[in-house]
């Protein structure tokens, strides 16, 4: 079923949540650093999407992009509200997330999500050679493949990552 067609109804909301709820929650947790507040952000995102479903135009943006745009606004609102809340004695002031902070967190989360979408073989070599800065020969020996294969997986891994980011609507 196409969730975009019936976002006004409960089945549409269920389908949209099943497709994008986990990603939106992940982004909200990363941005707000608070699972409780992140849950509130996701609830509010779907409520706003339902209330304004007539504004959704699949010709302009995908449902995913539209929901993330709403969620971004919600996260900024919640971060500001949290920052403005009076503190009880001895409480540590939470970091106030600006719109720029939230945008950075959104891009980082999308890359993280894109990395989860590419094949396990490709992700593994990118993690080993890029994040862990391990020599290609060492990674090749550990995986029991020639060094050329590791290089090839780096190439195809970056291509797949680029494609996943494009599919998610992340601008290069």
């Amino acid at each position, binding site marked *: 079923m196409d969730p975009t067609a019936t976002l006004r109804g409960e089945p549409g909301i269920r389908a949209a949540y099943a497709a994008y709820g986990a990603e939106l929650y992940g982004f909200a947790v990363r941005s707000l650093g608070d699972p409780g507040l992140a849950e509130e952000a996701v609830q509010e995102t779907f409520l706003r999407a339902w209330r304004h479903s007539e504004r959704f135009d699949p010709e302009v943006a995908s449902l995913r992009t539209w929901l993330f745009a709403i969620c971004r606004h919600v996260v900024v609102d919640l971060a500001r509200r949290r920052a403005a809340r009076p503190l009880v004695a001895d409480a540590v002031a939470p970091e106030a997330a600006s719109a720029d902070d939230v945008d950075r967190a959104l891009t980082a989360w999308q890359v*993280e999500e894109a990395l989860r979408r590419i094949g396990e073989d490709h992700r593994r070599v990118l993690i080993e*050679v890029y994040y862990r800065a391990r020599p290609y020969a060492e990674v090749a020996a550990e995986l029991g493949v020639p060094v050329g294969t590791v290089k090839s997986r780096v190439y195809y891994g970056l291509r797949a990552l680029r494609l996943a980011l494009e599919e998610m609507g992340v601008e290069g």
Partner: protein
Amino acid sequence: MSEGCRPFREQLGPLALGHLPDPEVASVRAHVDGCADCREELRALEEAAGALALVDPELLDEPLAPPRGLGDRIVSLVREERLLEQRRRRRRLTGLLAAAVLAGALAAVTLGIAHDPGVRVLLEPQRGGLEAIPARLVERPWGTEVRLEASGLPAGRYVVWLREPDDDRVPAGSFDAVADAGEVVLASALAIDGAVGIGVSEADGTTVLYGHLRD
């Protein structure tokens, strides 16, 4: 990609990451400089490589799953909003409650309730002939404030209670449902954290509405 590109293509990944040894860089660069396709490919790979820097690798092993039941709660909230919307429409048509709604909104703002939305829950009918009604539970120092939208209930006296995990019921008060009763405000000594559900019974004790809060 031409046959001439093939030996260089897979070097482009390590090159984009800055991992290619110097002697190899020179020959790959020489090819890329003269090949528009490979130049474009390298540009795309470098964009992907740049994106990697944004991610904290420690977080990759920590997939974030939303809490169980969040999807159901969202659907329940949407249902609740739809009910409220339908009722608002009905009221606009009859024009009967305009003043009461305004007074309620003013009271809510005055009491600061508008800033504390509390926990929203939909009370589902436990027998035929009833509509689901939305309720809101607000944490208070003395227990829990319970707000019910009672307009849709058949006339009669109702008793409201909060259910504890051991099935005991802690009273939250009673009210008479009359036409267009609007929101009813009640109080229970039980803290929200101690409640697993909220119920509405008729005077004879039969539960007619129930909302699940937690397992």
